[in-house]
Every structure is written in structure tokens, then in C-alpha cells.
């Protein structure tokens, strides 16, 4: 029985450590390394990226949600630290233009096809 509990404890430790590591990786893959050229925090080994990775790990240990971690970092470094930016007026073109091009293109193709 004693060995069973020891095994269970080790097993749980490994599983939880693994899930925390996974969450850290997922979050840091969505964070931009602001002092690097086109790298995520996950990919970079700069001091900045290492600090952010450590911070994310600590916050996960403190049971903070992903949103709380992102909000904190957005507050400190601005919206652009996130690779997946939220919709704002200044980046509206980023979201609207592809849809606009698709609609205009579809209309043009449809008109040409119906003309034939």
C-alpha cells in the first residue's frame, strides 16, 4: 500500500508538471519577443524572453488564468506583445481587408461567369 501511494504521488507530480509545462509553452508561443526579430518568447533565448518565460511559469504556479497573464503583460508592454491581437480601430484594416478582397473578388468572378 505504501508503495502504491508513493507511485501515485510520483505519477501525479509528473502529470501536473507536464500540464504546467504545456501551458507555459502554449502561452509563450503566443507572446512576441519584443527585442527579437520575428521570434516568439518560446523560441527566443534573449534575457527578455527568459524573464517572460519565468514570469509565466510563476503565474501558472499561482493558479492564474491565461487571460490574467495576457492582461498583465498587455498592461506592461502594450497590446503588441500578443501575436493574436484583439480587434481595435487601429488594426481594423488587418481584419476587414481580407474579407473585403474576398467579397469583391467573388462579385467579379460571379459577374464574369454570369456574363458568359
Amino acid at each position, binding site marked *: 500500500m505504501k508503495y502504491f501511494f508513493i507511485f501515485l504521488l510520483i505519477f501525479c507530480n509528473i502529470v501536473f508538471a507536464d500540464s504546467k509545462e504545456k501551458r507555459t509553452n502554449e502561452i509563450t508561443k503566443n507572446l*512576441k519577443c*519584443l*527585442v527579437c526579430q520575428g521570434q516568439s518568447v518560446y523560441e527566443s533565448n534573449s*534575457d*527578455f524572453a*527568459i*524573464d*517572460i518565460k*519565468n*514570469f509565466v511559469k*510563476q503565474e501558472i504556479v499561482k493558479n492564474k488564468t491565461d487571460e490574467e497573464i495576457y492582461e498583465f503583460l498587455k*498592461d*506592461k*508592454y*502594450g*497590446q*503588441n*506583445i500578443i501575436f493574436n491581437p484583439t480587434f481595435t480601430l*487601429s488594426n481594423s*484594416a488587418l481584419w476587414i*481587408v481580407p474579407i473585403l478582397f474576398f467579397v469583391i473578388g467573388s462579385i467579379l468572378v460571379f459577374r464574369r461567369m454570369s456574363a458568359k
Partner: protein
Amino acid sequence: MHLKKEIKIVIVIIIFSIFFSFLYFSMFSEKDFKPKAMIGKNLPNLSSKTLYSEIEKDLKSIAENEKFILNVFASWCVPCKVEHPYLMKLKEQGFKIVAINYKDNPSNAKQFLEKYQNPFQEILLDPKGSLAINLGVFGVPETFIIDNNFKIIDKHIGPINENFFQKVMNIK
């Protein structure tokens, strides 16, 4: 609507020119990141052990509701040596300067300050860079101007220079 082919081409060129000039100028309107996201915000309440006393101190209690300068430095950082004379000049002008010693070896930091003189009233240790993240720091050196209500009124990334010195003098 039967427009001439030339007119159609001109219209398409005009639309594309407007669109691409919008994209081109929007590249400059907002930089890749906002290095000054912390300006206008309140100074977070940070505490850490200090370099000389090893006692845990609170940044706000060191500042005592006075306007002050917060400098993030490290002995291994070459630009920190470049800016050091300006920090000394600010100290001579009577400014309170508090430092955060970023990811440094305390004995190296002490040697650095012995060699170049110490302009800091207090030096908080940040061995893991956690204080720096709370301040939105990108790297060393970085310098903040904080008013007497603990509001960050300006921030300078990189070694401070004559312009920054003049800016601080004007704020005084």
C-alpha cells in the same frame, strides 16, 4: 456603365494607391511595440533586498513621495557605463535616484559602483528579472521619471544622454 478601358485602369490605380499609401503610413503611425506603455501609469509597489544592507525594502517607501528617477542597470551592461556620467550629473543637481540592479552578481555591482562612483540613494536587487517585468522593462539600461504621486511620467530606453538630462532639468 460603360467606361473607357483607360478610365477603368486609372480608377483601379487610384484605389490601389490609396490603399497602399494607407498601409504604408500606418506602418509609421504605430511602432512594432509600445515601449512606453507604462507612461502615465502608477508605479507598481515593488520590494526587494538592497545591495548594501541586504534588508528587504519597498520602492515607494524609499521614494517618500518625492519626484525621483528610477534606473535599471547591471555591471555587465556596457551602455550602463556610457550613461553613468549623466546619472552622476543628475545626482549633483540634487535628484534622488533609485536603482534596480538587474540580473547581476552583487559583488560585481559593488565593484562597478566603486569604480564609477555611486549616484544611487538605494539599490534594489533583481536577480531573476521579476521587478523589471513589473516595470515593463525591455532590457538594460532603462530610466524612469516618477512624480511625487508615484506616477511614471517618462521613460527612456537605452543609455540616457544630454537630451534626457535637459528633460529632467526642465521637469524639476
